[in-house]
Structure formats: C-alpha cells, structure tokens
C-alpha cells in the first residue's frame, strides 16, 4: 500500500509536465510532416497565412488548426501557391475569391461589418459616458445636502431637538 501511493502520486505531475517537456509535439499533431514546405521561411509564411483563414467545415478553427479534410486541401493550396512564388496577399486573394469574406478570420470593414468593428469603441464610449454621468451626479448630490444642512434651524425645529435630547438623556439615565 505505502509503496504504491508515492508511485501513483508521481504519475499526475508527469502527465501534466509532458507537454512542457515536448512542446514541439503539439503543433505537429495537425498536419502531416509531408505537407510541409522544405524551405522553413516559406513554411513559416504558409502557417501565418493559414492561421488567418477559417476552416469552412469546423468554422471556429483556422485551417492550420483543423483536422478536416477540406482544411488539409486548403493548407496544401496555400503551400502550393507559395512554392509557385505568390505573395501572401495573392494567396489570401485566391481563397477569398472562392469562399468570400467567410474564409477570412479577420473580416474586412464593409457596410455590413461596420457595426461589428465599431462595437468595442461604442461599448467603451457608452461605459465612459455612464461613469461620467454617475460621477457628476455624485458630485452634485453632497452639495445639496450641505446646502440644506447649512440652513439655520427654525424655532419649532430647535424646540423639537431639545425635546429629543431631553428624552435621550432621560433614557440613558434610567437603566443605570
């Protein structure tokens, strides 16, 4: 019993550390090594382009990350074009012509996507406005309190205050 326990305890950390020890294993999981271009600079360009292109089948992955058959075909096309000497923009245009804006993970700014692109700025402006309004209201409110407190007590108020104080004093005296 006691000999098994430490051994079992060591398995979990080992499993957790494995990806750290073999970091190269993760990116190689998708994509056959045979797909890669011989020139590392060209291969790096192909990967950068592929990460910007959406897999049409799984949709929330880039073609570099996807295992789908179509993603593999598109990866091969990207590499083929690069090997033929196409620029990055030409490679992207080739697929954009066939699959439209949908294939771009970074959609272009058009009338249809203007709201999408403006949304962060609009949210920030809205939040800033809300904070400014709240701050201004808070600054106005204490002033009003001070103004009213500064007004001198009327005769009736003074009499009521005296009565309250007397009652309080009476209450304090009684229990002791």
């Amino acid at each position: 019993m006691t000999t098994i326990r430490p051994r079992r305890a060591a398995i979990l950390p080992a499993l957790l550390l494995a990806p750290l020890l073999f970091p190269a294993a993760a990116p190689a999981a998708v994509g056959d090594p045979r797909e890669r271009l011989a020139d590392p600079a060209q291969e790096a360009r192909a990967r950068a382009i592929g990460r910007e292109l959406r897999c049409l089948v799984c949709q929330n992955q880039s073609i570099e990350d996807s295992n789908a058959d179509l993603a593999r075909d598109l990866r091969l096309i990207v590499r083929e074009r690069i090997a033929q000497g196409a620029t990055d923009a030409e490679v992207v245009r080739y697929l954009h012509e066939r699959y439209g804006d949908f294939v771009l993970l970074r959609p272009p700014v058009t009338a249809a996507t203007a709201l999408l692109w403006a949304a962060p700025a609009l949210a920030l402006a809205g939040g800033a406005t809300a904070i400014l309004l709240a701050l201004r209201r808070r600054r106005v409110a204490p002033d009003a309190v001070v103004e009213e407190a500064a007004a001198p007590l009327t005769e009736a108020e003074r009499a009521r205050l005296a009565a309250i104080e007397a009652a309080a004093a009476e209450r304090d005296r009684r229990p002791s």
Partner: protein
Amino acid sequence: MSDTGTTTTTPAAAPPGRGPGHDRDARPAGEAAAPPRAAGTRRRWVLYAPLALAGGAFLGFYALLRGLGTGSYDPRGVPSALIGRPVPDFALPPLEGAELPALGAADLRGGLAAPVLVNFWASWCVPCVVEHPMLMRLSREGVPVFGINYKDRAEDARAFLRRHGNPYARLGVDQPGRVAIDWGLYGVPETYLVDRTGVVRWRWAGPITPQILESDLRPLLRRHA
C-alpha cells in the same frame, strides 16, 4: 416617545437628489421654475432610451430566432462567393464505365437551352441519398442536371447510380477535390443553378428537400428559363 420616532425618520425619507419627484419637491420655491423641467425631460430620456434599446434588441432577437426556425438564417452557412459570376474554369474526366459525357466549363457557358443544375455528390455522403429522389424527379421533368462526383471511388460511384438511378446528363469526376474548391464547395451535397448565359444564380448547401424544391428552386428555374 413614539412621536419622536416618527419625526426623526422624516428627513431621511426624502434624501436630496435621489429618486424622481422627491427632488423636485424638496427644492426651494424660487428655484423651482426652470431647472426641474430640464431635469424632468432628461430623466424621462434616461428612462425611455434603455426601454427603446431593449425593445429593438428584442425585435432583432425575435427575427433571428424566426430565421433559425424557418431555415432562412443559418449562422454556420457559408454564403457562396460565386453568385452572379460566371462558372469557374474547369475540365473534369468522365466516370469510367458509366457511359456518361464528361463535364467542363465549356458545357456551361454560352447558349444553353435552359438553366442547368450542377450537383456535387459522393457515394459516401448520406444527405446525397436523401436528396437523390429530388434530382431524379427534376431530371424526369426535363431539367438538365449535371453531376460532379467528389472524392469518391469510381466503383462506389457506379454502384450508387445503379442502386438509386442516374439523374445526370453529364458527370465529371473530381477525385482530388480541386475543382470543388474553385466552386467554393465546403461540403457535399451542394447544388448550383447556372443560368443560360453560364452565370451562377443560386447555390444550396445541403440536401434539396421537397420544400426547397418548391419554395426556392422552381421559382428560380421559371425565372431563368
């Protein structure tokens, strides 16, 4: 004793500057003429603007859900980049042993007698089996249906046509799937309507159901006839 209790709460019940109405009443009479009005309209605006926003959001959300229900809105659907453009250049080999003419861009360009359907299919594709009776029906009615067999084995494709019938007037074989990418295909089946001048007018991703046939395809076939 009891009346001192009620009097102490009165000032706290009307905190200045908080809550609608109380603020206006608490102001001295001389100041009451102009500012409360401005404050009132602003307060009304602050109340109605979020309400209008919420109303608009509700309507948008409702339209979205309705679209999802009827199928007119599909967030996963990839709109075809080919609509309104001539068919891409391609030339495909015929299916061996099927005795059907091959298919190329030349067969779709210029001087067609009627609009043509181009259907991408594969024997391994289950929705293709589902839509096959619709293609058979269209073909019997005289609509030219051209096929592109996608990433398939010749013997499997032949067996599929023997078993389910052949609706195709022409059939090209795209084993590597390259021509499919030129068409912007992202799954099988996909069906394209090419008008008489060789321009792509419509694309349907997924099986053609009797509903799609009646609501979408027939009106388009009439319009481009």
